[in-house]
């Protein structure tokens, strides 16, 4: 059974290789090959899952050793896969959601001439993501970590001819690299601390190391997680990443890749458990990000960017939960999975809306679409209910648990974190209701606005072909797109309940992550009640602002906070001024220094010799008499020298 693990990765990898190397002759069938191989991987996953379920809870770890990768003295890196409950959860999420999105993309990318390549990249992503979650050591995880970064780079920049897409892709990769730096330093620290970086030895001996080292490792891992999971302060790339095709946003930038940071923290739980300071920083980052993302999400008019803000915020929840230690690990992963369903569903819904609206992304030009796209409306609506935590749906169970756990952290921290989480829930309800209302309800603002302002962001290039000046004719998307949406909506509705009832998910994961209840100052009921109140407040405010009043077609200037939030709370501006400008000045001055100083010293020496030779050359004027003078002078000097020597 272990041997199947490698096949999990091999199938999409094969797909990527075939599709990318195969060339144009595969254009006709490429998307089906990609989908097929992704589904194959899912099937393998299901088989393995069945196998795991058949085993004892303590015996659910499968290892597959392929070959020795880097053997240098004490530094031994193997290509070994580990399939345990945690990886299994991810495998199913990745391959399951991944396959659905493959299917969706078949329809969504139908008119794109580079569809084969798109599927190649998607398969590459799947392979890398599976490698990430299946790796048995941090170095191999690093390969998957950067692999998903590469796939993300390729997919964000899929429409490379758009400078904005290319820039966004580059930005995503480079910001992620900053995080990767954290991961590599963490691995180096592990190597110096433990002499190895395989999960088994590191995690089982974590308590042997000094707390200072563990804190350092933890913080570095957190840096890595911040980069990949778009947490403050490395969150700036996620909004721009929405330049990619919508299925990409759904799969990579909502459901799977961005949650890799959470995986990393949960996987390294043993390290964090022994380093409370690092844990505290993790919770702070999570709390800050969940509010940050939520605030940003409230202000965006671009539907995808609003959802991106939401993603950021939801991952903030997960990171917060993961930072709480054993109280929160399971709920972090549970929220991760449910989030995978409903956020992917929401993105696919957004894609479907854009598909029907000539790739318009500005929600101020939507409105009243529920009549035209019933399936999209229903699935999106279910996703909406799930994310705001409507009782009974997925988000309710998972988010509620996290808020509970935050309070259960205890002490002042618990109160602060819990309050943040509650506040976040209210804001979530607000901005998601806003999205919902602006898109599907209200007047049809897309009518009587045949021309769009040139500044309006255009996500999809096909818009140019479809005639962007025509009035959009909203229509439901084809079956191949709606079926995945329906499937994800089902997941959004039932997953949470399925997991929570009887604590199924808790029991499943507990052997890996451990679990403790903590002692909450509030009862579970009280927390749920508070959450419900927050939810109602959030929805209510949104309804008052966007449901009762007409939505202006041009965004009002807004308060200072709104304007800042529209600009990602000025973080990009900060980056631009400090890092980009500063970097430009630095490189420019270094180029100057290299040219004038470093090279200048050498060239100056050369020029000095050249000048001296030029002077000396003039002595060689060709006149015999000049030569005679120097000869005579030389003779005189010789005589003088002789006399001097005699005198001395």
């Amino acid at each position, binding site marked *: 059974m272990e041997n199947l693990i490698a096949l999990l990765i091999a199938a999409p990898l094969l797909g990527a290789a075939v599709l990318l190397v195969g060339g144009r002759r595969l254009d006709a069938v490429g998307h089906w090959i990609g989908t097929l191989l992704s589904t194959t991987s899912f099937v393998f996953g299901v088989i393995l899952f069945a196998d795991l379920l058949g085993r004892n809870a303590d015996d659910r770890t499968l290892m597959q050793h392929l070959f020795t990768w880097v053997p240098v003295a004490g530094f031994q890196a193997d290509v070994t896969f580990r399939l345990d409950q945690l990886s299994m959860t991810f495998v199913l999420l990745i391959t399951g959601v991944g396959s659905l999105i493959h299917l969706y993309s078949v329809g969504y990318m139908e008119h794109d001439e580079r569809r084969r390549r798109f599927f190649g990249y998607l398969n590459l992503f799947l392979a890398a993501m599976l490698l990430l979650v299946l790796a048995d050591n941090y170095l191999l995880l690093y390969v998957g970590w950067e692999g998903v970064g590469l796939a993300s780079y390729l997919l964000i920049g899929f429409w490379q001819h758009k400078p904005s897409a290319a820039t966004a892709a580059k930005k995503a990769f480079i910001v992620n690299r900053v995080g990767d730096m954290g991961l590599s330093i963490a691995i180096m620290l592990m190597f110096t601390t433990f002499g190895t970086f395989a999960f088994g030895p590191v995690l089982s001996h974590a308590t042997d190391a000094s707390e200072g080292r563990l804190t350092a490792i933890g913080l570095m891992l957190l840096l890595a997680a911040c980069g990949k999971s778009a947490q403050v302060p490395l969150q700036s790339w996620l909004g721009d990443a929405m330049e990619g095709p919508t299925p990409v946003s759904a799969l990579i930038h909502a459901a799977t890749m961005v949650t890799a940071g959470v995986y990393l923290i949960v996987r390294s739980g043993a390290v964090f458990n022994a380093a409370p300071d690092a844990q505290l920083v993790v919770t702070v980052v999570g709390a800050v990000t969940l509010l940050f993302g939520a605030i940003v999400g409230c202000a965006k008019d671009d539907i995808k960017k609003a959802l991106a803000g939401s993603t950021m915020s939801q991952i903030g929840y997960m990171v917060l939960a993961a930072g709480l230690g054993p109280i929160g690990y399971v709920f972090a992963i549970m929220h991760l999975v449910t989030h995978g369903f409903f956020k992917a569903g929401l993105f696919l819904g957004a894609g479907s809306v854009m598909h029907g609206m000539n790739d318009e992304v500005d929600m101020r030009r939507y409105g009243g679409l529920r009549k035209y796209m019933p399936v999209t409306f229903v699935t999106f609506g279910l996703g909406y209910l799930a994310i705001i935590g409507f009782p009974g749906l997925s988000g309710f169970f998972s988010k509620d648990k996290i808020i509970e756990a935050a309070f259960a952290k205890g002490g002042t921290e618990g109160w602060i974190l819990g309050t943040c989480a509650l506040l976040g829930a209210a804001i979530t309800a607000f901005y998601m209701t806003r999205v919902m209302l602006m898109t599907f309800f209200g007047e049809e603002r897309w009518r009587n606005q045949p021309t769009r302002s040139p500044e309006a962001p255009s996500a999809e290039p096909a818009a140019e072909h479809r005639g962007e000046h025509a009035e959009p004719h909203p229509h439901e998307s084809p079956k191949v797109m709606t079926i995945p949406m329906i499937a994800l909506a089902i997941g959004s509705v039932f997953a949470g309940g399925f997991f929570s009832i009887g604590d199924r998910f808790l029991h499943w994961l507990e052997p890996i992550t451990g679990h403790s209840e903590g002692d909450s100052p509030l009862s579970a009921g009280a927390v749920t009640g508070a959450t419900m109140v927050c939810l109602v407040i959030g929805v209510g405010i949104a309804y008052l602002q966007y449901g009762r009043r007409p939505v202006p077609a041009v965004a009002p200037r807004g308060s200072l906070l709104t304007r800042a939030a529209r600009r990602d709370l000025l973080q990009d501006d900060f980056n631009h001024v400090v890092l980009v400008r500063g970097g430009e000045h630095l490189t420019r001055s270094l180029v100057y220094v290299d040219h004038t100083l470093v090279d200048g010293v050498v060239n100056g020496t050369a020029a000095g010799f050249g000048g001296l030779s030029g002077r000396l050359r003039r002595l060689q*004027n060709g*006149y015999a*008499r*000049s030569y005679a*003078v120097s000869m*005579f*002078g030389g*003779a*005189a000097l010789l*005589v*003088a020298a002789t*006399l001097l020597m*005699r*005198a001395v």
Partner: protein
Amino acid sequence: MSQQFAAYATSTGEAFQFWVLGTVAVIGALSTVFMKRAVHSALSLAGTMIVLAVFYLANGAYFLGIVQIVVYTGAIMMLFLFVVMLVGVTAADSLKETIKGQRWLALLCGVGFGVLLFAGIANASLKNFDGTGQANANGNVQGLAALIFTKYVFAFEITGALLITAAVGAMVLTHRERTERPKTQREQSEQRVREGKHLPPLPAPGVYARHNAVDIAGLLPDGTPSELTVSKTLRDRGQLRDVSAQALGDLRALEQRSEERLERTPVEPANLKRGEEASK
């Protein structure tokens, strides 16, 4: 007599001779350097050499004194004069310096070197003069001959070879080998006809009857001198005399004189100006 000359301290006569002739020698040397014309330089040098010959004699080198006069002053300096005659006076005779700083450097080096030499001589202990009396006891020439044909015989023989080589070398250098038969007069005239230039003989130099020297170019009808009329060598040396303006000058002087005599106010004929300019 030899004893007397060879004494350690010289006689008053020799001292007198030294100071007088020495002055002459230095003056001759200086004029060799500073005379503008090579002929003058050569003559000054000859004078210095003669003085040196006298000094040789005074120092007991009788043979050398005679050789100095016969060979150096008589033969070599005459050779110089021949060459001066062949080469002639050229622009090189101008004492104006063309290389920047050359003169000052040369003077500096010269003075410095001189000072050093003087210092060296003054520094050396040159008190003890044996005199040549002993050496010249059997006669100066015999003494020299004894040395040349014994001790210095190889050097002497080699010197002979050197002289032969020099003579041959001089011939080789100055002799131009003719590689083809010289053209006869007939052939030359035929060539001229073929090439169509200067069919008649070249015009003669000289102007009227007054200036028939070979270095004066004949005047063309418009009064300008024609260089064709003078020999190529003179042209190359830049030794042409221009007399085209002389007639006009004479005419003007004549007119002036006649006008003075006739007590008229001098009239400057405008048409004469052109001639003046041409003469410049």
